[in-house]
């Protein structure tokens, strides 16, 4: 780690253990196994990238952590507390785990400032004035000053994504759950967004659980990368990216990065082919 990265109050929060999780969807009696005995350890303050073909069941895993869906067996714990597991199939959604959705979930009828303030106002632990100050300082940190009175519809998709991540951070979450947030962006915007996300990460050191099907994105951002099998979903290979932070976009041309790409692209490609053959689409 680079010394310029400050010690952070979030340090030590957001350790997640996924233990033998099974999820079976049962639409019309046709049991479809989405997640099969999946186990994964995510250390506090780590960026863990989940890579797999579309429809492999990655989002199912994320929904289980967030508490939007139940699991059939196994357990998920965060910082030693059970989120879901035996006797409690579905986690309770909470502001310690905030999801940033694939298509974005900024409230279009609220301006940026009101979106930022939503979580803390709901939590009711801080006064409105305090919340507003926090919102302004976090927006300034993320280079979003001046957008506070805009409605989300008036912003570019890149800026909207950044706003949504900062809105998530307003809740002081232990973990950010990102579900292919940059999927719809062009590759140039994407690389800008990557650096911006890392920037936010250096400042907040929040655990990040990031789903993607883009291997280069995974290796660039992650310090742990889990390559998942196509449905049913479980880790096929988990590797640590030993390239120190802070990383700039130039990293992708380094020999070490290219070696990692070479090492992993075969695995990902294999799963993509399997998934394609099985005709899986969304998930």
């Amino acid at each position, binding site marked *: 780690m680079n010394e310029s990265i400050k010690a952070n109050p979030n340090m030590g929060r957001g350790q997640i253990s996924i233990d033998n999780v099974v999820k079976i969807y049962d639409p019309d009696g046709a049991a479809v196994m989405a997640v099969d005995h999946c186990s994964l350890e995510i250390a506090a303050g780590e960026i863990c990238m989940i890579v797999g073909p579309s429809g492999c069941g990655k989002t199912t895993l994320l929904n289980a952590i967030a508490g939007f869906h139940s699991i059939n067996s196994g357990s998920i714990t965060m910082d030693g507390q059970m989120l879901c597991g035996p006797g409690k199939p579905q986690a309770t959604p909470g502001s310690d785990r905030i999801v940033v959705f694939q298509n974005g979930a900024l409230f279009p009828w609220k301006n940026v400032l009101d979106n930022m303030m939503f979580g803390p106002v*709901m*939590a009711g632990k801080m006064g409105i004035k305090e919340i507003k100050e926090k919102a302004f300082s976090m927006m300034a940190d993320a280079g979003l000053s001046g957008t506070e009175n805009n*409605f989300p519809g008036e912003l570019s998709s890149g800026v909207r994504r950044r706003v949504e991540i900062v809105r998530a951070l307003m809740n002081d979450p232990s973990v950010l759950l990102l579900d292919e947030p940059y999927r719809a962006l062009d590759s140039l915007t994407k690389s800008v967004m990557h650096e911006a996300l890392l920037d936010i990460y250096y400042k907040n050191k929040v655990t990040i659980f990031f789903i993607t099907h883009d291997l280069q994105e995974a290796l660039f951002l992650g310090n742990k990368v889990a390559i998942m099998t196509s449905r049913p979903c479980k880790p096929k290979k988990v590797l640590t990216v030993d390239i120190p932070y802070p990383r700039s976009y130039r990293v992708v041309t380094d020999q070490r990065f290219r070696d990692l790409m070479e090492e992993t692209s075969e695995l990902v490609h294999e799963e993509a082919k399997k998934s394609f053959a099985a005709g899986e689409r969304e998930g």
Partner: protein
Amino acid sequence: MIRSVQKFFFNRSSRRATIAIIVFLLFWEICSRSLGWFGFQVPWIGKIPAPSAVITAWIPLLSDSGYWLSWYLSAKRVFTGFLVAMILGIPFGLLLAINRTAYGIMFPTFEVLRPIPPLAWVPAAIIFWPTAEMSIAFVTFLGAFYTIVINVLGGAQSIDQRFFQAARSMGSSQWDIFKRIVLPATVPSIAVGASVGMGITWEVVVAAEMISGGGSDGGGKGGGLGFFIWDSYLGGSYQQIVVGMISIGIAGYLSSSLIRALGDHFSKWTRR
């Protein structure tokens, strides 16, 4: 102010509109006067009083309190029916959207009643309600009610699941979700329902006034723009029929503009 007036007159689309209206009036004038001028009558439009004759008939009416009373009575009925439809229709639509049981019980009945045109209710309404005035208000209300309910229901049902999930994970209670997600997300649909509903109430009020003899207000003689047209027809004053028709056009346009402006004001965020 002066600038906006200037802008209006130099704006291409308002210039086009003005020219179109003038051309239309000229065409109408020539067709109406064809018998006297060219010795043959243009079919259909030739029987209608010419614009100049209509305006001649209109001018004395402008200082006639009976004419303005008709405006007032129709507008009062429209806005009463419309407001009651909003007050009952919005909560009802929201209830159907958020409560499965309520939906299961009430929606089928609602769907059977909905296709019945409001005007088909006129005889029944006259029997149900003690006064003609109340029958007209009831029928007017029906005209807007169904449209508003259907729009609110559709709007609230199509709210994206993500917004609920995001709100829940940020610690919102059920009430918070209703107040901060469902309501604001439905506002644009309410606005659409209201502006369509407003148009329907004008259609309905005029017909209801014709059928029911203008209601009991207006000094016992009845009234309203619909009645005004019918009365002119019975009295053989064809110019006044056209005056009444154009008056309704203007009244409908003004009230729709008002509703649209209000709708735009409350759903600013939908404008990109």
